[in-house]
């Protein structure tokens, strides 16, 4: 396979990882690159969405890729008619999700769309707070609706109420109905997700552009500091950990909550004392909803929440409790942060002419109006809704196990959503007729075939891009959210040639720091992170916040200056370089690097993890290694 250096491989040029041959059949046909759509696919630029799917995804989990890019598309293309962009096209390649921005170039069409956009966006901007208030109500309704879905075991006989109330139809009908409702609700929630997001980014970018024109050298960080919220929902789960840590100190429970042991042991220890019970009650009260919080973004069925693995928040609480006990002040100085933000704004405004200052105020006002949505929507959608969605999926899987169709509940996720629909029809109909499900053996064999394929897909990492990159990356989503900029794409093109000492990324959070790296693929590995280390991860969701108390810097594979890792790192004052493309693949735990959060660079300072290098050097010089 050869590619010239101006493009990435085409989809059809990339082979499946060993053992993953035949992966294509696992996903809905329209998600898989095909011979019929090849001309279009080869003409496009595709980049990996490892922000949402950091590993190759199970067939069922590809539903997220459908829902997300249906949502983006409807709002960009059909509802708000963004003048120069349509939606993001989506494909699954070797199990990873790839997306491709679609631009509008025809000037007449742009004009036509601009007219629609101004009318419709204007309505939202003018009524933002009110509509956003409604959005929250709508989301709460959607979550409650998801919550109300239940999947009941198929019993030997239909329940009595079917007869007593003369319902005239079997309760089993609800299995397929509720499955369809589950899917529809999930898609609806992803519609809501994008109801405000495009406009939110638009409003934010406009202020951004104004600042760039008024102050050509202004940094992204300075602009975002003028806009960023100080006291927003996104920080609440972490704030709750801090609060519980403080409470543990107040109640004299630091030793208890920081003790080695399982969370069950901790619970027993706490239940033994009056103060312990007080603390536990507060902890349990916080859990719903604040610990319905995924370690990443909840796009896969097997991801943990803080509630499903309480060791994660307990670890955070323990680390904060130790700090407080050591006399450290871990509270976020909200008043001071707010005063600082206002002072920065005043100083910038004072540098402008009167007319400019007026526009500055107006656009800053817009940016601040829309920004809470940008910061908060993930809590509602990716954390709270997904949490319920996956719980319901697991409930459904259990029904299939109970019906004798599946050997293990997790097997269900090896079927895509359409296959599962077919299976449910088979199961319900067979149950009604009184025979064993007709597809049982066939799907059992297919699931066994798929298991090693998914394992092979997940063992391989995703190339950052496919296809022909544009001269300039202008799509605002690609730039702001994914950190896919023209420079980054050129880095990827160059970097594929060989090993380089430097990784380039997006400046996420200011500061320069040197230190050994700790490469972590999952939040579960966070306890391995040692003080003074620089965290390297595919992404860092806000739920990793406690890690920022330990890490001296953060490097991620994907993400832009508006990604959550960057937002949270800025909040906590940790240097961050995001969107490097390859950091988790290139860097090895123990290697020393220097990261520059302003330039967006990561420089490898030694080739081998520390220790090895020192020893070798000593030998080379003929000097006996000391100590």
């Amino acid at each position, binding site marked *: 396979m050869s590619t010239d250096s101006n493009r990435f491989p085409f989809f059809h040029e990339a082979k499946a990882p060993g053992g993953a041959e035949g992966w294509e059949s696992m996903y809905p046909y329209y998600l898989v690159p095909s011979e019929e759509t090849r001309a279009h696919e080869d003409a496009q630029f595709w980049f990996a969405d490892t922000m949402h799917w950091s590993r190759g995804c199970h067939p069922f989990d590809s539903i997220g890729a459908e829902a997300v890019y249906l949502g983006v598309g409807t709002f960009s293309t059909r509802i708000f008619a963004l003048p120069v962009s349509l939606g993001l096209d989506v494909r699954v390649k070797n199990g990873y999700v790839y997306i491709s921005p679609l631009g509008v170039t025809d000037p007449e069409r742009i004009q036509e769309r601009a007219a629609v956009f101004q009318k419709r966006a204007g309505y939202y901007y003018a009524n933002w707070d009110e509509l956003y208030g409604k959005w929250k109500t709508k989301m709460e309704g959607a979550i409650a609706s998801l919550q109300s879905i239940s999947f009941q075991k198929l019993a030997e006989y239909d329940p009595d109420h079917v007869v007593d109330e003369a319902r005239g139809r079997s309760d089993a009908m609800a299995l397929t109905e509720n499955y369809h409702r589950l899917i529809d*609700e999930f898609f609806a929630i992803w519609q809501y997700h994008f109801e405000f997001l495009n406009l939110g980014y638009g409003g934010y970018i406009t202020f951004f552009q104004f600042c760039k024109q008024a102050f050509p*050298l202004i940094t992204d960080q*300075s602009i975002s500091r003028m806009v960023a919220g100080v006291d927003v929902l996104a920080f609440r789960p972490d704030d709750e950990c801090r609060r519980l840590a403080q409470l543990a100190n107040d109640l004299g429970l630091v030793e208890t909550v920081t003790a080695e042991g399982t969370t069950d042991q901790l619970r027993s220890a706490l239940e033994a004392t009056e103060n312990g019970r007080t603390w536990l009650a507060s902890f349990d009260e916080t859990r719903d909803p604040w610990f319905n919080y995924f370690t990443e973004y909840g796009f896969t069925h097997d991801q943990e929440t803080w509630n499903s693995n309480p060791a994660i928040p307990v670890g955070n609480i323990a680390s904060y409790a130790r700090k407080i006990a050591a006399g450290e002040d871990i509270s976020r100085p909200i008043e001071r942060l707010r005063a600082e933000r206002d002072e920065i704004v005043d100083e910038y405004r004072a540098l402008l002419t009167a007319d400019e200052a007026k526009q500055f105020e107006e656009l800053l006002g817009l940016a601040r109006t829309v920004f809470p949505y940008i910061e908060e929507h993930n809590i509602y959608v990716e954390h709270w809704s997904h949490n319920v969605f996956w719980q319901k999926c697991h409930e459904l899987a259990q029904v299939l196990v109970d019906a004798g169709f599946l050997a293990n509940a997790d097997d269900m996720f090896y079927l895509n959503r359409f296959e599962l629909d077919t299976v449910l029809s088979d199961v319900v109909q067979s149950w009604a007729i009184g025979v064993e499900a007709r597809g049982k053996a066939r799907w059992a064999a297919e699931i066994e075939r798929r298991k090693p394929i998914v394992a092979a897909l997940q063992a391989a990492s995703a190339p950052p891009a496919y296809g022909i990159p544009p001269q300039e990356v202008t799509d605002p989503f690609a730039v702001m959210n994914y950190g896919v900029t023209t420079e980054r794409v050129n880095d990827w093109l160059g970097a594929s040639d060989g090993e380089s000492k430097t990784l380039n990324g997006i400046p996420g959070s200011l500061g320069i720091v040197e230190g050994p790296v700790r490469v972590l693929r999952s939040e579960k590995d966070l306890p391995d992170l040692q003080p003074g280390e620089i965290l390297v991860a595919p992404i860092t969701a806000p739920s990793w916040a406690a890690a920022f108390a330990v890490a001296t810097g953060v490097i991620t594979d994907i993400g832009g200056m508006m990604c959550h890792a960057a937002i949270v790192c800025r909040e906590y004052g940790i240097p961050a370089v995001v969107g490097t493309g390859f950091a988790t693949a290139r860097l090895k735990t123990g290697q020393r690097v220097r990261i520059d959060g302003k330039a967006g660079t990561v420089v490898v300072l030694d080739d081998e993890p520390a220790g090895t290098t020192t020893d070798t050097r000593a030998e080379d010089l003929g000097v006996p290694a000391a100590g």
Partner: protein
Amino acid sequence: MFTLEFTHPDCRDVRQVGGKAASLAEMTAQGLPVAPGFAVTAAGYRRYLEEAGLKEFATQVLDGLRPDSGQAAFDEAERVIAARLAGIPLPDELAAPVREAYAKLCADCGVDDVAVAVRSSATAEDSVGASFAGEFETWVDITGAENVLAHIHKCYVSVFAGRVLSYLAEKEIDPHEIEMAVVVQKVVRARAAGVMFTLSPTSGDRSKIVLEASWGLGLSVVGGEVTPDRFLVEKIGLGIADRTPGYKHIEYRRGDAPQDVPEDRRSVLCLADEEVTALAAFGKQLEKIHQAPQDIEFAVDEELPDGKNLVLLQCRPETVWSNADRPPAFDASAGMMSWITGSISGRTAPPASGAAHQH
């Protein structure tokens, strides 16, 4: 009072110390560091002229002069007066406080016989004002109290220079309206020096302060003889956004001939971060005082103790960007920007009720 330190409140009175000294005192009062020193007041000059009836003597000589007397007559007057003044040193009543002030300056700087510049700071009625700038001499690298006294004496004599006298005659100004206050100020021994703009000279960005600096005096930076170190500072928050080391192969130690900088120092930054930040803070303050972006010369004095070693040398309004027509920050032709502002400026109807989640 015959001497006033720049830090003395009275030193800000132009009638007592002349424009030059008053402006140095004014900057000192505002916390803007200039090289330390003191003024010998106009009263000191008057006291000198009282000595042995010098004023009357001068008046006699000058009375014979008319605007059309010709340069030779003025030069003759200079010769006669200078000869008389030469025989009369500063009286003890004046010399003693000068010696004392110089000794204190040496002590403050921590340098014995510190080198100073002696410069005129003439006072006159406002109408005469600034036209005297450049008429009088400046002497640099003067060391020792007796030399300082000798140069103050030279300043006094210079009032009666032939070209000054003819100039005054032409303007119909009585030479006795001129009162010669004198500035005695430490000569800057620059470890490093340079220029600071309170905006980015390349982009016009007003939220930035840019410093360029090199080893030694600022001559090498101003003259473009070296590639200076370049520092980009955020005006807001004073964070250093960028440090670009230059290549500084020569330096001026005294202002005459440059000397080579050893290879290993050429690419080393000549200002520490704290110095850059402190200088930028001064720049920001000067911009505020003058209500316009400034172009400032500064130095880091190697003789003065840390914390007192930053010295501002000159300050003038920046002219290139300040006078240029800046493109408006709001660019209506920039697609998204105009569509979005277009959509927020239009009035729209309030939302209809009922947008709940329905299934």
